[in-house]
C-alpha cells in the first residue's frame, strides 16, 4: 500500500495568526484516519488547504505522488480528492437527484457515469446513502441528518479515492450518528481512503484505527486512539493545564 496523501511543512497564516503551523503527515492508501483537536485547532483549515479552497503560505501537498499545492479545487476533486463541509452545503432549489448529478457531471464523475447514464448513476449513489425515496424533492425541506447523507452522496458522485469528511457528525442525534457511521464504514470497506475530523473524541475513537492530533495549528502526535487518549499534551489541549481527573 503506497502513500496516497503526503503533507509536508504546511503553514497557513491569517495576518498575525498562524492557523496551521509547519504541519506534516502521511496517509496510506486504504487507511481510515481521524484528525482531532479542540475547536479552533486548525482542522478545517488543513482540509481547506488540501482541497485547494485556500492556498498555504508554505509547504507542499502531494496526492498520489502528484503535487497539488495551490491547485484549483475542481481540479483536485477531479484527481480523486472529494470533501464535505462542516456546515452542510446543498443546491437548495435542485432535487436531491440533481444535487448528486452535478458531481456525476464533473469530468471525473462522468467517466464512471458514462456506462450507466448520469441519472441512473446518481440514483445508485442516492440509494447507497439511503435517500433514494426522496430523489425528487429539494434539500430545503430535509432534516439535518439527511443533509449530512446528501453531503457524502455529493462527494461520492465524483468517484473519490480519498474522502475528506469535515465534522460529519456535528449536529446529529445519536441514532443519526450511527447511520452515518455505518455509511462511512461501508465506504471504507469499498476501498475509499477516509480522512475525517471531529472535535468530540468519543465519536472518532471507536471508529478509526489511527488518529492525528493537532492543537493551535501544530502537530501533536500520531497514533492509535488509545495512545492519543493517554497523551498528556492532548489531554491538556482539551481540558486545560493542571490536574487531570479523567
Amino acid at each position, binding site marked *: 500500500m503506497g502513500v496516497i496523501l503526503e503533507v509536508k511543512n504546511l503553514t497557513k497564516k491569517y495576518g498575525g495568526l498562524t492557523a496551521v503551523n509547519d504541519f506534516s503527515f502521511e496517509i496510506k492508501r486504504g487507511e481510515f484516519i481521524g484528525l482531532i483537536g479542540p475547536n479552533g485547532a486548525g482542522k478545517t483549515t488543513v482540509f481547506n488547504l488540501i482541497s485547494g479552497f485556500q492556498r498555504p503560505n508554505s509547504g507542499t501537498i502531494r496526492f498520489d505522488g502528484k503535487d497539488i499545492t495551490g491547485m484549483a*479545487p475542481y481540479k483536485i476533486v477531479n484527481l480523486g480528492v472529494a470533501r464535505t463541509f462542516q456546515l452542510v452545503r446543498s443546491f437548495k432549489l435542485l432535487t436531491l437527484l440533481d444535487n448528486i448529478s452535478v458531481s456525476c457531471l464533473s469530468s471525473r464523475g462522468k467517466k464512471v457515469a458514462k456506462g450507466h447514464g448520469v441519472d441512473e448513476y446518481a440514483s445508485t449513489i*442516492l440509494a447507497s446513502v439511503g435517500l*433514494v425515496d426522496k430523489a425528487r424533492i429539494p434539500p430545503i425541506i430535509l432534516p439535518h441528518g439527511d443533509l449530512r447523507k446528501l453531503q457524502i452522496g455529493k462527494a461520492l458522485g465524483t468517484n473519490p479515492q480519498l474522502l475528506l469528511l469535515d465534522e460529519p457528525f456535528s449536529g446529529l442525534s445519536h441514532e443519526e450518528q450511527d447511520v452515518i457511521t455505518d455509511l462511512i464504514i461501508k465506504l471504507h470497506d469499498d476501498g475509499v481512503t477516509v480522512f475525517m475530523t471531529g472535535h468530540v473524541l468519543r465519536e472518532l475513537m471507536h471508529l478509526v484505527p489511527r488518529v492525528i492530533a493537532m492543537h493551535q495549528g501544530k502537530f501533536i502526535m500520531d497514533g492509535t486512539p488509545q495512545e492519543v487518549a493517554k497523551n498528556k499534551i492532548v489531554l491538556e489541549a482539551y481540558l486545560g493545564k493542571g490536574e487531570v481527573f479523567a
Partner: protein
Amino acid sequence: MSAKSLSKGKGRVKKKLSGSKSYLLNWSKTFRGRLTIICLIGLCLIPLLTQNRYYLGIFITAMIFSIFAASWDFLAGFTGQVSFGQAIFFGISGYITSYFIRYLYLPWWASLLIGSLVGVAFGLLIGIPALRLKGPYLGLATMVLGLIMFYTFLNVKFEPWLGGSEGISKIPQISRNAVETYYIHLIFMITSFLILIWIGKSKMGTVFKSIRDDDIGAEASGINLTKYKLIAFMISAFFAGIAGGLFAMHNRGVNPGVFQPLYSFYAIVMASLGGIATISGSALGSYFFWFAAELFSEWPDVSVFIFAIILILVIRFAEHGILKPVLERLKDIWDLVLGK
C-alpha cells in the same frame, strides 16, 4: 463506488425514471401545457384579426424583447450571474447586423447570425474578466462596460467608423409584408424559448443552477466554474444578439442609444415582471410591458412614472413575478369553467 453497490441500486432506480419519455405528451395534458398551446395558437391567429403594420409592430416589439429578457433571465435566473450590461450584446449585434446588411449587402439572416456571433465574442470578452466578480460587483462592472460602449459609439472622434449619434440607418426590413415579418419574429421567439428552456432542463442546465445555488459547493463537486459561467455568458449573449439584430431591422436602423443601461433595465424589468428563472415569464413580462406602454403612449412622461409604480407593486406583492400568481388564478377559473 464498487460494482457491487452499483448493481444493488439498479432495480429501484428504473421505475423512477421511466416517466421521462412521454414527458411532452404529459406536459401537453397539464394546465400549463394547454395554456401555452392556447397562447401560441392565439399568437399565430393574430394576423387574421389585423394586418395593420402598426398593431403588428407592437406584437413584434414585444416578441423581440421577450427574447432579450429571456436571454437575461437565462444568465441571472439559471446561472445566478446578474448582468446589468445585457444591452452590450443587444447593441453590438444590432450594429453588426445593420452594417452587414447596409454596406456588404448580405441577406438579413446571414447578417443576423454574424451579429449574434459577434455578440457571443463580446460575451466571451466580457465574461473572462467579469467571472472573478460576484453579485453586485459583477452588476456594476457590466453596467460600466455598457456605458463605455455607449459613449464610444456616441463619440464624435469615432464617427467616421462607428456612425456617431446617427448610427446606421435606412436598413431594409426583413420583409415588406407585415404579416410575413410577424411570423418570422414569432418563429424566432418560439425557437429561442424552446432552446433556452431545453438547455435549462438539460444536464448543463443542472450544472448552471448548481452554480447559482452554491458556487463553492459546485466547485467541491468538481465543476469548472469558469468554463460553465463562460458558456452561460456566451449562450445569453447569443440570444441577446438575436434580439438586438431583430430590433435594429425592425426599427430600420440602430444608434448608440441601444447601449444605454436603459435597455439592460428593460430586460431586467421584463424578466422580473414575469418571474425570474422561468424563461416563459419573460414573454409575459415583455407583452405586459409593451401593451402597457401602448396604453400610455399618449403621455410618454407619465408612462415611466406608472411603470415604476407597477414595478414597485410587483416587487412588493409578487416578488417571484406575476407568472405564477397569474397561472394560479387562471387555473382556478379554468377549473371553475370545467366544473371541477
